[in-house]
């Protein structure tokens, strides 16, 4: 089985021989059981996801304030209109899009390189694979703080090493400088999330039939050509799922920019902006409008993801 998130659990017909004895009774009994089994899970999900989401969308059409939730008035699309006119918001949108596009591209390329390396026959593969998993195990907030210290303008190891190697001629304030801050955030995300990409790609690589490669070797086909003509097309479905999944994750990023640079406008993502309006400025109506917008973006991507996954499911297995 390749990357499983792409495939929906397949309806499985069970118990046919047994059911043949008393088909309707048993089936009815099982369906009733299914209802009881699913009900608690769905109740909780409705309470913690459905209801708050509905309230957020409702709030986005009101002038609700955090101080006195409950006394809000309906204001129609006013929040969305001011959102559209706020350059800070569009800056956050642009930051998020830049962040998602650059970090996911880098993670894909890097993940591909590392996965191909791990898939090759090398000594100490186990150790390398273990090393690659470490960034994934580090909590996001912790990795933000670790890199914050490494980025430190006066005592950071990044400046020290780059100065010594001659990459830079004076120390930089990586997270404070307007032109570098977003790149610094992206670099941390790439470090932290490449392992995830690597693992998904590696799982796909290890399912490839070895015969093709032996045949290609016998025919003397150069390895770059084998990569572009054989490997890449074969792992493309898995790669697409991983990319879409990572993009969804990147679009809703909150903790990394928040911990690295606070609410700084150079790096604020849509989620950071929305939370700042909601909690710090207590403007629940306006903040909810921003959240609702982000939700709509993610919803579109989710639909693409599910449809893409389904297409593959129908043709793949």
């Amino acid at each position, binding site marked *: 089985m390749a990357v499983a998130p792409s495939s929906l659990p397949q309806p499985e017909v069970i118990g046919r021989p047994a059911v043949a004895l008393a088909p309707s009774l*048993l089936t009815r009994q099982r369906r009733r059981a299914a209802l009881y089994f699913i009900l608690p899970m769905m109740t909780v999900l409705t309470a913690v996801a459905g209801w708050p989401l509905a309230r957020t969308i409702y709030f986005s059409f009101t002038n609700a304030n955090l101080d006195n939730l409950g006394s809000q008035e309906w204001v129609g699309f006013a929040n969305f209109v001011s959102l559209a006119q706020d350059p800070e918001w569009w800056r956050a949108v642009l930051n998020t899009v830049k962040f998602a596009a650059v970090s996911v591209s880098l993670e894909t390329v890097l993940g591909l390189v590392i996965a191909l390396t791990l898939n090759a026959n090398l000594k100490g593969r186990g150790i390398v694979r273990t*090393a690659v998993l470490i960034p994934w195990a580090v909590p996001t907030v912790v990795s933000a703080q670790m890199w914050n210290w490494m980025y430190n303008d006066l*005592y950071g190891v990044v400046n020290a090493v780059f100065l010594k190697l001659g990459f830079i001629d004076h120390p930089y304030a990586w997270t404070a400088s307007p032109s570098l801050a977003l790149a610094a955030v992206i670099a941390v995300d790439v470090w932290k999330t490449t392992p995830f990409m690597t693992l998904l790609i590696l799982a796909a690589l290890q399912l490839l039939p070895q015969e093709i490669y032996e045949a290609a070797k016998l025919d003397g086909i150069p390895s770059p050509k084998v990569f572009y003509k054989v490997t890449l097309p074969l792992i493309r479905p898995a790669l697409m799922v991983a990319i879409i999944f990572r993009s969804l994750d990147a679009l809703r990023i909150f903790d990394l920019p928040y911990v690295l640079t606070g609410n700084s406008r150079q790096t604020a993502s849509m*989620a950071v902006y929305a939370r700042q309006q909601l909690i710090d400025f207590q403007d629940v109506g306006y903040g909810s409008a921003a959240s609702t917008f982000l*939700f709509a973006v993610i919803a579109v991507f989710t639909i693409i993801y599910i449809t893409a996954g389904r297409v593959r499911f129908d043709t793949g297995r």
Partner: protein
Amino acid sequence: MKPRRIIGTTLFYLLVAFIVVYTVFPFYWAIVSSLKEGSALYQIEFFPKDPKWGNYAAIFREQPFGRNILNSVIVAVTVVSISLVLSVTASYALARIEFRGRTPLLLLVLSVSMFPQVAVLSGMFELVSWLGIYDTLWSLTLSYMILTLPFTTWVLTTFMRELPKELEEAALVDGAKPLTIITRVFMPLLWPALATTGLLAFISAWNEFLFAITFTLSNERRTVPVAIALISGASRFELPWGRVMAASVIVTVPLVLLVLIFQRRIVSGLTAGAVKG
């Protein structure tokens, strides 16, 4: 070996070495920094000549870091237990019983796991204050369900449908009730899957930041990620980096060990559920 081959192999292993340094160095540097005190912290020194443990003692003395760890453990364990209990039965139904609306339901569960958390933030805030649980661990237990429940349900459904149907058929012939089938037939086989799913859900609850910083206020109620993000020193302008790194190492070492021990399991769980990073 031909010279070209030697150069190729050397370059390849250089690449491997670079990958290892790139992935491991930041964490290594955090460990090294956590062992330095005073002015030693401000010198670039790749092997600490004179390691000191003062930072580790200080974070427990100067702030309720022990309490923060306990909070994180309480919340994560509670949330994961509830999620597993609810999702074992639900995923049995979703994986093995045919009924109308099953596929839409599965898609719904999958979509919820992709929710941006901020999209429920104001609604959840209202719910939390209405229930009177603001600034208590209950607010986190409640809100984290949105992270863990869809995930455990989805992954367990994937695992559950892989089990051979002959097992269930035998039980059905004996007239076993669905709940008996789950507890007697499936659970014993599902332990590895439950452990993997539970561990991954635990990690996502342990790492959660947005709800934790929004729904708790006092130092004593904070979970580890918020505590680490908000560690402050005597001066507003210079963070006590030695202490921040010590706290970071403390909460990361158990996770790294768990991940290394359960490596293979985690890889299978990740590919089955594409967990959030």
